[in-house]
């Protein structure tokens, strides 16, 4: 229901964030029946999700935030068994290129082309990133989407995965990357993470609001997104 409401709002008038809203709507981890028309009904061979050129993956990950931030950030790259640290950081930020199963609309859940650069601040790296790392590890060991969702939710409930810390946020300001077939290029934006918060508290998803939000009741997670006016390199975003 929430998804439908948000979709209606997003597609009505948020020029800048419409695409982002669309993408966010598909990011929920609620188990959904796979549509028979989905172009990516199952996982592709793992190689298709990997980037052969580690330097290219590092550069793409770092492009998520201005260089003033990402140059001192830790960078993790995807390997066959999960993410590994490729660059040690010193400012608490962690930059990473997330793949479809954590960062794309449902239709693109198994889309091997998805590359989503994100730089988490320290609080985000401690609180949200572990979920995405765990999800990735489970996916790479062959678990189904439903199994992964169930495991993540259980881990959150048992507090094996942490709640969101105050001030947890991330930068998603890369000009590059690929968000999926439905939203190939996400608008430049920042996101803020809270443990289950009513989107209305921030005035999100209301007509004219510059804030979009998605709540995942199962993971007790609310994500707020705000479009920003420049890419990470300082050039004007469209």
């Amino acid at each position, binding site marked *: 229901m929430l998804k439908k409401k948000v979709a209606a709002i997003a597609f009505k008038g948020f020029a800048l964030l419409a695409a982002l809203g669309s993408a966010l709507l598909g990011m929920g981890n609620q188990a959904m029946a796979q549509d028979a028309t989905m172009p990516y009904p199952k996982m592709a061979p793992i190689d298709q999700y990997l980037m052969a050129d580690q330097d290219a993956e590092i550069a793409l990950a770092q492009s998520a935030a*201005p260089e003033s*931030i990402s140059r001192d950030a830790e960078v993790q790259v995807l390997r066959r068994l999960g993410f590994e640290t490729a660059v040690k950081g010193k*400012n608490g930020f962690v930059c990473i290129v997330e793949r479809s199963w954590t960062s794309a609309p449902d239709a693109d859940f198994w889309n091997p082309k998805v590359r989503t650069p994100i730089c988490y601040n320290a609080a985000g790296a401690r609180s949200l990133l572990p979920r995405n790392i765990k999800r990735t590890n489970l996916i790479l060991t062959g678990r189904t989407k439903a199994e992964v969702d169930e495991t993540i939710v259980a881990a959150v409930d048992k507090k094996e995965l942490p709640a969101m810390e105050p001030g947890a946020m991330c930068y998603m300001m890369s000009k590059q990357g690929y968000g999926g077939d439905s939203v190939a290029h996400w608008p430049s934006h920042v996101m803020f993470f809270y443990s289950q918060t009513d989107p209305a508290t921030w005035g999100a998803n209301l007509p*004219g609001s*510059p804030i979009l939000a998605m709540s995942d009741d199962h993971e007790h997670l609310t994500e707020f997104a705000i479009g920003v*006016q*420049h890419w990470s390199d300082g050039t*004007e975003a469209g």
Partner: protein
Amino acid sequence: MNRSQIHTLLLSAFAIVVALIAASSLPASAQDAKQPYSTMAPVEQYLMDRDAEIALARSAAPDAISNDASVIVLTRHGYETAVEGKNGWVCWVGRGWMGMFDHPEFWNPKVRAADCLNPPAARTVLPYAYKRTELLLAGHSKQEVIAAIKAAIDKKELPPLEPGTVSYMMSKSSYLTDNGDHNGPHLMFFQTDKNDTAWAANLTNSPVLSVNYWYISAEAYPQLKAFPQLSVFLVGVDKWSDGTPAHACSSAK
């Protein structure tokens, strides 16, 4: 709005944030010498027509938010509720003195900073604004106001900051500062982080700016150093509350 313009706003006298990062490197005496607003103007200069003030306050956020918000207006003795809302938000028009205590436009009577606070901010940021305003309008000095606020904090008469505070400042009609275009749409977030780098604010090309809520430099009012850490983070947005686009962006610097 480019970074420079946002910075100008952040460095200006608009409600609650009002920072002066650039000027913070200046000695207090140098700032004082340049201050065009060294004392309070006659109180009438800070007051507005009530209906106009309600409309201006509401213009801080999209109608979907402000139509159901409470609205407070300034009187000779402080803010009072003009409209009872039903969504927990409070819209108001801040004056120059909601800026940092050492801000050069603290007493600028032209400042009209329309602002809509979400429920956590209304509960935990607004009480500070009430207190400050009432004391200043009663004729107390800045030193006295600072001491009174500190005492109220210590006695827990003023609340600690709740998480999740947000403020909309998207009015086309605000006057935030004498500088630049005087205005620009943005959102603000209040945090108790001791370290502004938590969000990587103020770094080159970062879309996030932040300042200390209380002062530019504690040199003029060193007692502010003992206040609870309170940072204000700002993110510029590209539309006014009525949905029209803000002036064209240019390259961030």
